[in-house]
């Protein structure tokens, strides 16, 4: 139960002979992925590139990625969890109900064939996208593929990796982990970090109206979140830091224009496989960096009296 078996993208490039994309459309959404890291890349142990690899695409509809794939498996919407759980049973030669398998839009034969391919791969990789992680079942869909891949390692080398969204979301996740212990959905109101997705994750907090202010950095929830969350952001004092005016800026009380990280501000971005890449600015910006703005806000906040008397009782003044 739990965990993740993964690797950096170079391992995929150098070794993978079976590449599965599940719930994503890399041809459109990650345009360099095929050529740089996976399908078409020539790797140390896959010198023939595309010819040395098999690509399986699993999705609910035909996308432009289909023509890149060797095998396309069209699953009915919302049936991913059923399919992956069936694969886990087939992996162990356990019985499954054929009629209920058929309700997923795929036949038992197709799934058995996929399991055989997975077991016989030399080095398999499963990339999963938001078609899996953001549809019915959500985190359990992710848990399902992560567990399937972990179990496959009893037969062969197999890894998995989420295809993450835009921006430096991986970087935020990495830094949150070393500063708080948790990747996201962290609450610091008691003076120390607590974690409970569903309770403290952004959309849930906003939809319930649990917060009375918001600081938005490197995201545009006004464009992507459900309407009740957006309505709440408009109700409360919302501050946006962004190089450009976003949907969220329009409903915020304050928008602070900042320099674009990577173009006119330095920093580190974490690639989807958590490899840190340096960002080297090539232009100068008239605007301050995100870091500078946060630092200046923090200087002002710091002089205000402590908000939790009990928390401070034990600490003598420095």
């Amino acid at each position, binding site marked *: *139960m*739990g965990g993740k078996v993964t690797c950096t993208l170079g391992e995929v490039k150098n070794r993978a002979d079976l590449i599965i994309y599940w719930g994503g459309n890399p041809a459109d959404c990650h345009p360099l992925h095929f050529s740089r890291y996976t399908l078409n890349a020539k790797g140390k142990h896959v010198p023939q590139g595309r010819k040395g690899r098999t690509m399986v695409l699993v999705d609910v509809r035909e996308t432009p990625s289909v023509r890149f794939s060797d095998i396309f498996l069209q699953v009915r919407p919302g049936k991913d*969890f*059923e399919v992956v*759980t*069936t694969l*886990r*049973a087939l992996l*162990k030669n*356990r*019985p*499954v*109900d*054929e009629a*209920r*398998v058929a*309700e*997923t839009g795929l036949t038992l034969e197709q799934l058995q064939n996929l399991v055989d391919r997975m077991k016989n791969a030399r080095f398999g990789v499963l990339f999963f996208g938001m078609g899996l992680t953001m549809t*019915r*079942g959500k985190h*359990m869909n992710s848990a399902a593929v992560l567990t399937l891949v972990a179990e496959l390692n009893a037969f062969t080398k197999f890894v998995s990796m989420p295809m993450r969204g835009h921006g430096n979301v991986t970087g935020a996740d990495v830094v949150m982990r070393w500063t708080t212990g948790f990747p996201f959905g962290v609450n*610091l*109101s*008691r003076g120390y970090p607590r*974690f*409970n*997705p*569903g*309770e403290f994750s952004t959309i849930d907090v906003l939809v319930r109206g*649990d*917060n*009375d202010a918001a600081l938005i950095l490197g995201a545009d929830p006004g464009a992507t979140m459900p309407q009740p969350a957006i309505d709440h952001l408009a109700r409360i004092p919302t501050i946006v830091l962004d190089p450009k005016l976003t949907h969220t800026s329009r409903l915020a009380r304050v928008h602070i224009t900042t320099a674009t990280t990577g173009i006119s501000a330095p920093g580190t971005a974490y690639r989807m496989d958590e490899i840190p890449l340096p960002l080297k600015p090539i232009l100068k910006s008239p605007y301050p960096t995100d870091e500078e703005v946060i630092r200046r806000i923090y200087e002002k906040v710091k002089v205000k009296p402590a*908000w*939790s*008397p*009990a*928390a401070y009782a034990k600490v003598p003044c420095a």
Partner: protein
Amino acid sequence: MITLSLKEEPPVPLEAEALSPDVVATLRYDEICALPMFLGKRQCRVDDHFVVEGEASDELEIRGDAGRVKWIGRGMTRGRLRIVGNAGMHLGAYMKGGTIEVTGSAGDWAGAEMSGGLIRIGGNAGGQIGAAYRGSRTGMTDGTILIEGSAGLEVGMRMKRGTIAIKGSVKDFAGLEMKGGTLIVGGAELRTGAWMTRGTIVSLTRIPLLPTFAYSGTCNPTFLRLYARQLGTCGFSVPCDASAGAYLLYTGDTAVSDKGEILAWQPHAS
């Protein structure tokens, strides 16, 4: 008995793990008034938000819409806690003993990781009832949770022992990764019993099943009669009359085990 009446609904969540019979039983009136709570990030006192009445006792009554008050009865071991109104998230989490009764509804995580005691919810409940917190291996290990209405996602997730009975229907993933105990539901949406290794899920209606559950015949198990009798005294009726119908038995989840059971009631065609 101590009575706490909520003055008004808090604007942001109020965390109030001090509201437990164990804490208030031995305290003086003024000490109860001064117990700490957290309104968002600010520490405050019980009497900032509640009108406190009565005398120290291990009976505690909370009145008003406490749907934003979290952690009521956390880890309680004894006494009686009655909420006339709604309760927020984590009601009776880590509870070891005593009784909690809510006339209205309760939020997510009620009875999470509890190891004893009884929680009765008059209205609906949220998700993760009696569940394991994220990352924990085991949810509730004993005790009973009774819900008159419906409940949300992942009810009884990783539960190991104890009983959860819900008159209404539950959402997806009831009994997720269940390891033991009994979960009784009026009905369920998808993926009931997903990845369960042991334990019993009883549904009073037919429910959709994962492909990884195998039909193993019909039955009218004896242990269910015992449950039916006991739950009957609490106003929960569980059919177990062989002349009225039978349970369809499914075993699984074959992705991980064949020792979990799902029983779905099917009345005889009349």
